[in-house]
Each structure stands twice: as structure tokens, then as C-alpha cells.
């Protein structure tokens, strides 16, 4: 009986397997388990893991913390809009605001140093996409996500928004400049 008809045997559970199926199931199961254990393995031995550290917050509270950081560590401003470029001390807590339609402020990091980067949204959902290094995370209003990052390449990285956030979505950019150590 074909697959669109009821099975020919009343008891089909006891039908013996063909060798081709048994062999393939064994191979596929092995591969599935390898892929599964690869994830905890990378948590132990890999260097790219999200800590999943996050807090509940409010846009006002988060903006206040960001403003305090901007007031203290701004080194220069850029563009006609005088966007602040902030150079926080290595190892410190750094705050980044996503809002319609900018990532604020611009940041300057030192290569090889570690920063606790806190990110939250002031309004809608945004996508933090750091290019060209290619790190992507989801940013929600009311939640503060913490990424502990160690830039290991110098130069200019652009933060793109890759979660649709309205008509100006494609203009929403930010920057992280990474300077060589010891400057």
C-alpha cells in the first residue's frame, strides 16, 4: 500500500528496518548530538558567547546613565549635529542608546581593552548590528542588555540598525572607533 493508503499490515510497528534506514538514522543521530554538544563546548572554550546579562530598566533611567557618561568622557564632537564622541576608560560601564533614528553617543574604544557595553532602546525595538565585524543583537525598550566586548581589531566600526523601526530606519547609524592601544 502506498503512502496515501492505510498501511498494509495491521501491526506495522514490528516491521524490520531496511539497513539503509538504520545506518542513516545512526549517522544522523550522531551528527545531531555533535551539533548539540558543540554549543556548551563553545561556552567553555570559545570566545564569542553572550553572557545574557540583562536588566529591566526605563528609558528615562537609562538615558540618565548615558548622559552622565557623555558628560564625563566626551572627547570631541562630530558632524553638523555635534554628536558627542565618548572615550570611556577601559573596563568601565559604557552606555549606548538606540532611538529613532540614531545610536547615541558615538564611542571610542581602545584595542585589546574590555568594556561592559550596556544597550537599550528609548522607543521601539532596534537591532544592534556592528559592521563590518558583524555582531548582531536585539535591543528592546525597557530592557538593558550588557555585552562585554574586547575589540581586537582597530579602525572604524559602524552600528547599523537591523530591526525595522519605521520610516527613518535606514538612516539609523552609529559608530565605534577603535584606536590602537597606548594612545
Amino acid at each position, binding site marked *: 500500500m502506498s503512502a496515501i493508503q492505510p498501511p498494509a499490515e*495491521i*501491526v*506495522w*510497528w*514490528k516491521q524490520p528496518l531496511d539497513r539503509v534506514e538504520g545506518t542513516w538514522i545512526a549517522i544522523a543521530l550522531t551528527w545531531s548530538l555533535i551539533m548539540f554538544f558543540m554549543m556548551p563546548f563553545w561556552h567553555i572554550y570559545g570566545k564569542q558567547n553572550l553572557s545574557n546579562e540583562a*536588566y*529591566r*530598566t526605563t528609558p528615562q*533611567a537609562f538615558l540618565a546613565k548615558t548622559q552622565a557618561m557623555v558628560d564625563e568622557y566626551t572627547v570631541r564632537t562630530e558632524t553638523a549635529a555635534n554628536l558627542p564622541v565618548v572615550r570611556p576608560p577601559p573596563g568601565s560601564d559604557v552606555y549606548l542608546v538606540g532611538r529613532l533614528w540614531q545610536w547615541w553617543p558615538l564611542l571610542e574604544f581602545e584595542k585589546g581593552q574590555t568594556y561592559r557595553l550596556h544597550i537599550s532602546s528609548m522607543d521601539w525595538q532596534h537591532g544592534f548590528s556592528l559592521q563590518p565585524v558583524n555582531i548582531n543583537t536585539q535591543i528592546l525598550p525597557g*530592557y538593558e542588555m550588557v555585552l562585554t566586548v574586547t575589540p581586537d581589531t582597530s579602525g572604524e566600526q559602524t552600528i547599523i540598525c537591523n530591526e525595522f523601526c519605521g520610516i527613518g530606519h535606514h538612516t539609523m547609524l552609529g559608530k565605534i572607533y577603535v584606536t590602537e592601544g597606548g594612545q
Partner: protein
Amino acid sequence: MNDQSSQDEIVRIPIMQRMLDNPFLLLFIGVVFPAVFYIIWGIMEIVTIPIAN
């Protein structure tokens, strides 16, 4: 439950086959598994996110 077909008395249907022949048991499994492991566990994780200081 005495209307079990005579067939059942002659051939014992294995338990696994009985399970796969029972659409409502499968429906129960197919709703409860993801509801527990994905939704309920996920909600518990979200509600226990600490408040920022």
C-alpha cells in the same frame, strides 16, 4: 470499552503504535511540550530579569 474489535484480541498492537494511532494523545503532546519548554520556561526567565540599579 467492550467494543474492542475482534482484531485487537487476535493481534496485540504494540504500545508505540497505539500511541501514534491516537490523534488526541499526539495533540496533547504537541501542545504541552512546547508550551512547557518554550513558553512557560521562557516566561519564567523573562519575569526573573533583575531591575537595573
